[in-house]
């Protein structure tokens, strides 16, 4: 476990959380001092913040899949005003840098989010969730390289903080999307987000979808090999740093992602099973040697 530099941030080790997989405020409430002694991540990435508040999707929101989890949470959050007014001061007290994840459905909306985050010194970097349908085209902003490059280029001048683009894996050529994000001015990319997935209600006739949101995103060990392939492909196509994630459960899995080119590794679903998974993986991640 050794310090690592990422977008100008000095981090104690390369393990961070995936956006939306760890609620630091709720975790402090549940575990208190136990968490303070060993915060599991070298930087904290917030859940996705949108301009307006969102209640989230109707239940059920979860489905346990073979070696994984499908979630259809629907990005519940207080909206940007609520986040900045209520959550930011608490998150700023974490012992690690704060990366705020934002999502909007137009370049103008994303620019507004980024500009308001830029004004807050508690925020060290900004991550863009581009797995959001463009209101004009209906396509996920991040699924089309040209559209993605244009959006990042439009947003870029609105902040001097580092911009990380969280790529969608539900694209024809993820490496091409990563390249487009870099050309648009991104300082880093992160991947993989969840894979679109679906489950049917076990006993319903006629067949009905289990999840209240219809479809969801698959995460966990089931997607680890997909993540490794996509991170390797992306790292080979870009010069900017890569945050790799997808099904990481132990240091060996994190090492695999680093070996194919990731600078940081995010732990996501595994933190649901073990809130200190990030700390365990960071501890077990010995400095590279052979």
């Amino acid at each position: 476990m050794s310090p690592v530099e990422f977008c100008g941030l000095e981090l104690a080790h390369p393990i961070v959380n995936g956006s939306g997989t760890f609620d630091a405020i709720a975790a402090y409430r549940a575990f208190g001092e136990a968490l303070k002694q060993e915060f599991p991540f070298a930087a904290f990435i917030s859940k996705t913040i949108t301009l307006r508040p969102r209640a989230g999707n109707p239940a059920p929101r979860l489905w346990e899949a073979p070696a994984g989890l499908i979630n259809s949470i629907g990005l519940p959050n207080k909206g940007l005003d609520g986040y900045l007014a209520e959550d930011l001061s608490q998150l700023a007290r974490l012992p690690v840098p704060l990366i705020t994840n934002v999502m909007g459905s137009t370049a103008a909306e994303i620019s507004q989010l980024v500009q308001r985050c830029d004004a807050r010194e508690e925020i060290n970097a900004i991550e863009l969730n581009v797995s959001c349908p463009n209101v004009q085209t209906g396509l996920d902003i991040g699924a089309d390289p040209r559209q993605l490059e244009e959006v990042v280029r439009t947003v870029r001048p609105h902040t001097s903080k580092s911009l990380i683009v969280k790529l969608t894996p539900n694209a024809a050529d993820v490496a091409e999307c990563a390249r487009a994000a870099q050309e648009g001015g991104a300082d880093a990319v992160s991947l993989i987000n969840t894979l679109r997935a679906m489950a049917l209600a076990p006993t319903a006739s006629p067949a009905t979808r289990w999840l209240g949101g219809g479809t969801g995103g698959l995460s966990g060990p089931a997607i680890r090999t997909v993540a490794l392939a996509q991170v390797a492909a992306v790292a080979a196509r870009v010069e900017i740093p890569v945050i790799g994630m997808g099904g990481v459960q132990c240091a060996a899995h994190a090492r695999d992602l680093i070996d194919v080119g990731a600078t940081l590794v995010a732990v996501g679903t595994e933190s649901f099973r073990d809130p200190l998974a990030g700390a365990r993986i960071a501890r077990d991640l010995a400095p590279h040697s052979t």
Partner: protein
Amino acid sequence: MSANEQLGAYRVLRVSDPDGPRPDPGQFAMLAAAERWGGGEDERPYLARAFSIARVRDGEAHYLLEDVGPGTRRLCELQAGEGLLVLGPLGRGFAAPPHQDRRPLLVGGGVGIAPLAILQDTLASADFSSTVLLGFRDGARGEGAALLNGASVATDDGSVGHAGLVTELLASELDRDGYAVVYACGPAPMLEAVRVMCMERDVPAQLALEAGMACGFGACYGCAVRTRGGGYLRVCVDGPVIEAAELERVDEHAGAPA
């Protein structure tokens, strides 16, 4: 794990945890087998499973389980001496003892009777005697009533006690003396019936809910239940015990991964 005992159709898992934090009645823990968690039906279980803490005695936490899926099956087959991963106690439990000296009515259904046992213990240590009404599908499950003291039992098939629903027992009790507070845990249709009955009669009720959850500590936002105000509460951190008056209804479809 220090013991795995049969109680009718259920198992009582006793887990040695002498240094662990003392749970409040109604709190829960996430449980997973330390070894061979996964590889069952459809390669499950993957996530830990949430269980109410049924009792704490002599440095052991007791959990009441029914084998209803790959996760509960693996836990039910664990033997004394095998390892269990326990994350807890979690969530907000029952507010007890009751305000204004209302008499406590404990209403449980099936494996959901578990948190009422520790609640009865806690109330007894504060010199409150509680009326206990428990409903089960059949006689084998009805044996679970031995977890509590002095329970009145209803069974769907009439093999033990009142033939019918536990909510019928509750209606009689409230008819007899409605100055009560209801603490309830059980399947969603039972909780919904309890909620409606208590709302109609203006009796405060605390409902221990179940919902599919991935983490148990507020991270995944998977266990959301709708409130009367139109928003959502997380069962894991805002509950699992929620005042009936806060809920729009108790939905069946938020069932836990078994």
